[in-house]
Each structure stands twice: as structure tokens, then as C-alpha cells.
């Protein structure tokens, strides 16, 4: 189970998503700049950060995709609390822009109230700090 709650810290709205697809990733956000002096001395300028950048891909039903669309429309500028599939709590913001919801597959049966059964995939980039 994957939980999105926003806006942080009031957490007005909570959306529960299925676990992301395999292939999710996370990385540090620190940067480094290397400079070399004329005598060959190497200098590094770093920008360290506690934040991490996460990438998750979800395969959602059409209804859940519409819920996520509404969630993103409402809180794309708000801090979001994420409780990922590992139980970690991450506070951060969405880095994805634009969000592309791709209807990749059809699925049966349809989940009411929609008449069609579809699967929607979306890749979300999220940057935040693990609590």
C-alpha cells in the first residue's frame, strides 16, 4: 500500500495507491562542481542535501487514476507526505511536470461507475526527506 497525504502537515486528503511497479529508484540530490587550478590542484564545490529523489511507476485503474489526477491538481504545489511500500515516511514535493497518465491496457471487468476497464500507468518523480 502506498499512501499520499496532502497538504503536509494538515494532511487534508489521503489517497491510497497500490504499490508501485518494480523499477522504482531513489537517488541523492547533492551536486558537486569540480575545479582545477593552474597548478593542477583539484577543488570541489559541493551542495549536499538530505533530500532524495524517488521515481515510482504506478499501474492504476481508471478510477484510481482519476483520483490521482484530482489529487495532483489540488496539491501539486503543496508538501506531500508519502508512506511508501516499505513503510518509510517521506515529506517532499512532486517534481514531475507534466504528469502523463497513459492508458496502456484494457482490463475487465469495468469498475463502476465507469463502464470501461482500463489500466493507466503513470510515472511520478518525487523529491523529499525521509523522516
Amino acid at each position, binding site marked *: 500500500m502506498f499512501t499520499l497525504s496532502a497538504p503536509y502537515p494538515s494532511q487534508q486528503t489521503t489517497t491510497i495507491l497500490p504499490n508501485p511497479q518494480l523499477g522504482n529508484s531513489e537517488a541523492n540530490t547533492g551536486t558537486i562542481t569540480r575545479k582545477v587550478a593552474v597548478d593542477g590542484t583539484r577543488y570541489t564545490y559541493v551542495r549536499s542535501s538530505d533530500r532524495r529523489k524517488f521515481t515510482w511507476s504506478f499501474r492504476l485503474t481508471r478510477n484510481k487514476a482519476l483520483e490521482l489526477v484530482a489529487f495532483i491538481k489540488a496539491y501539486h504545489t503543496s508538501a506531500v507526505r508519502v508512506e511508501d511500500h516499505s513503510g518509510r515516511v517521506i515529506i517532499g514535493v512532486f517534481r514531475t511536470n507534466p*504528469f502523463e497518465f497513459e492508458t496502456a491496457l484494457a482490463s475487465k471487468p469495468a469498475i463502476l*461507475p465507469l463502464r470501461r476497464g482500463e489500466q493507466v500507468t503513470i510515472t511520478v518523480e518525487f523529491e523529499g526527506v525521509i523522516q
Partner: protein
Amino acid sequence: MPLRVDRQFVEILCSLASSTEHNESATVAVDVTPAATLNHAAVIGATGTLAVTAACSVTTVLGLAVSTVVDISAFAEGHIRLYEAASGCGIDVAASVLSVYNGSATVPFEITPAAYIERVISRTATTAIIVETQVAVQGVFNREIEVEVQTITPTLDTTTYLLTDIISGLDCDVIVNQDHLLGTVQPIGIRATAARTLVRADAIDLAASTEVAVGVGLVKNETGSSQVAIPIQVSVVVDKCLVGSAEIDPQCIASAAIVRTLVAECGIIVESRLGYAVSESGVEFQYRPFIGAGGAADPDPPAATLADPLDGEDGCQFIYPAVGEATDTLSLRPPQLGNRDRLSFTRILTETRGGTVIAYADVSWPKTHTLVMTFSALTPVEKDNVLAFFSNHFGQEIGFMDWERRYWRGIVMTPGEQAVQDRDDSYTINVEFEGEVA
């Protein structure tokens, strides 16, 4: 008759007329020693009165001083009449004395208030004042003395044959002028009593009255005695006196009631917010957002429920115009799977110096929703209709009824998109439609 009289010696020059058988003349020097002098005179009676009146009133304003010196002047006058009679040695002396007394005195009062000011309603101060007064009385004595001068006549005593002086009567008047200076110095005790009322911190209204009784006794040792009573009434009225700084009793108690109206505004807003999530069956698949109580500044939450789909045919339709009666329509099959809903936001992502990422977007900034669709297996007629529709309504707002029966209003962003013939009588075309659900 010339007569020279002094105090010690009286010489009388006179011519004697005697009737004797022998007509002879003689000059007799008579030594007259007055039997009555002042020292020898016995006072047989004297009456005298000396009335001394004095009045003094002082009205002053006491300043802020520890002591104040007030001069009180008194004047006394009176007269004494003495009657004297003396006798001795055959000389009777009767004298009357008229004395006139004039006296004045200046009495310096030094008032040293022992009263110190404290926060009491009334208080009494007692001041002892020593007045030293001196009254000088100058008296003039006029005395008239009648003296009988006796004439000594030598007479032969036939018995003893000695000459015997026979004293016969001789009268003489003596007038003595003598000045007397009487003086006395007498300390007079004066007790002053001051009553003070209403002591305040800034100004004090108080009144003080002082009664001074001065008794002066004059005694005339030689010729009489008299009593002098000088009543002096001194009243001191102090209108207002400031508080002496050195005399303030430090043990004062001040109480003040301060009423303050305090208005405080607190910028801290405490809000109670409740968010919840229920792990129920199918929650990962259904449209099921959990919406709690948010703050006033929170964005509008998403809709709690999903709108019901509209009934309609399978397929989609482009309609011109978007609003009003349709004049041109284009009906197609639903797009291929793989269609995308592209959400694009205009927002700012900044990173603070501390490393915090802040996302911001104004509510008026655009949010675009783009439908990316691929239509395949179009017949040549459908292909021509699509190209013609897009060409006819190039850049115009059109309506789009999607395959879920939602009506969109927007524009076709790819009017020049190519229609690719992928097989015989089959064309494929990509369409990007940007709009929002009406």
C-alpha cells in the same frame, strides 16, 4: 535770697537783722548740712503704678526652612508717682516723685519647628522659645525738700559762764534733681504651640498659633516698687508650607490602584484538522479519496465522488462550435489504447539556502490538460473528414465528447498532424486536444 544748694553742702548767704541793744551787724556764715538726703530719707510711703501695654501680632508665611526667626517688637510706657516723706534731725522732708517710663523691647523669636512632616492627618508641634528682653526705664525724679534752717546764737550761760549756741529757726528750701536709670534683664520663657492639619505630599495647609505671655517685673529699690505685666499675644498663621525634603518621614506607605485595559492579539492560530484513511477492500482501485477537515489556507480538495458517466454510443465526437448549436461535427471511433492524459502546471520550484524545496503556483496561473490520442483504421473518407474538420476550425474552440461521455472544450493543438496510411484504406492520425471538462 540767693541760695546755692548742692547735694552735700548748702551755703546760705543772708543778712540778719537783729534787734539788740547794741546795734551791730554781723555776718553769719551758716553751714547747712541737710539732714535729709536721699540716703537718709526714710521712705514712709510710696504708691506707683506702671502700666505697660504691649501688643504685637505677626503674620508671616513660613517658607521651606527648618527655622524661622520672627522679630516681635513691644512697646511699654507708663508712669509712677511716688510720694515720700522723711523726717530726721529735725528736718522734715516731703517729696513727690513723678516718674515716666518708656520702654521698648525687640524680641527675636526663633521658631524651630520640631514638627517633621509625615503623612498624618494632624500633628502638634511644641517649640520652646527663649526671649531675652531688655527694658530700659529712665526716670526723672523731681524732689522738693523744705528744710528749716536754724540760726545759732551764742549765749552766755550764766551758770557755767560758757557760751552756748542757741539754735533758732531758719527755713530753707532744697530742690534736688536726680536722674535714675533702672534696668532689668529678664529671660522670658515662651512656649509656642503649633497645630498642623492636613499634610499632603505637595502642599500643606496648616495653621499655627502662638501665645506668648511675657511678665516683666520692675522693682524700684529705693523709692518704690511696681509690677509690669506685658501681655504679648502672638499669633502665627501659616497659610501654606511646602514639604521639607529633609524632614520627610521615609516610612510612608503609598498605595495605588492601577487599572489597565490590555488588548492583546495573538497571531497564533490553532486549528484542528483531521485526516484519515481507511484500509478497506478495493480502496486501491476505486475512486476513494479520504478527505478530512483541512485548514482555511489549504487548497480545495478533490471531489469526494466521481461523476457518473453519461450514456451514449461508443465512440467520440468533435463538435463545432463548442457552445451553442452544432454546425459541424466529426464522429470517430474511440482512440487506440495508449492514449495519455497530460497534466501540465505552471509553478515555481525553488530551493532555499537551507535546502528546503518550495513549490509555489498562483491560482490564476494556467493548468493545461491535454488529451493525446491516436486514431487508427480510418477510412479515406474519415481521414478526409478529419483533415477537413481540423482545417476548417483551425485554432477555434471546439467541443469534444469523449468515449466516457465527458464533454470537453478546447482546441486541437496539432492541426498539421500527418495522417499516415499504414495499410490499404487505413489511416492513422495523432491528435492533441487541449482543453478542460466543461
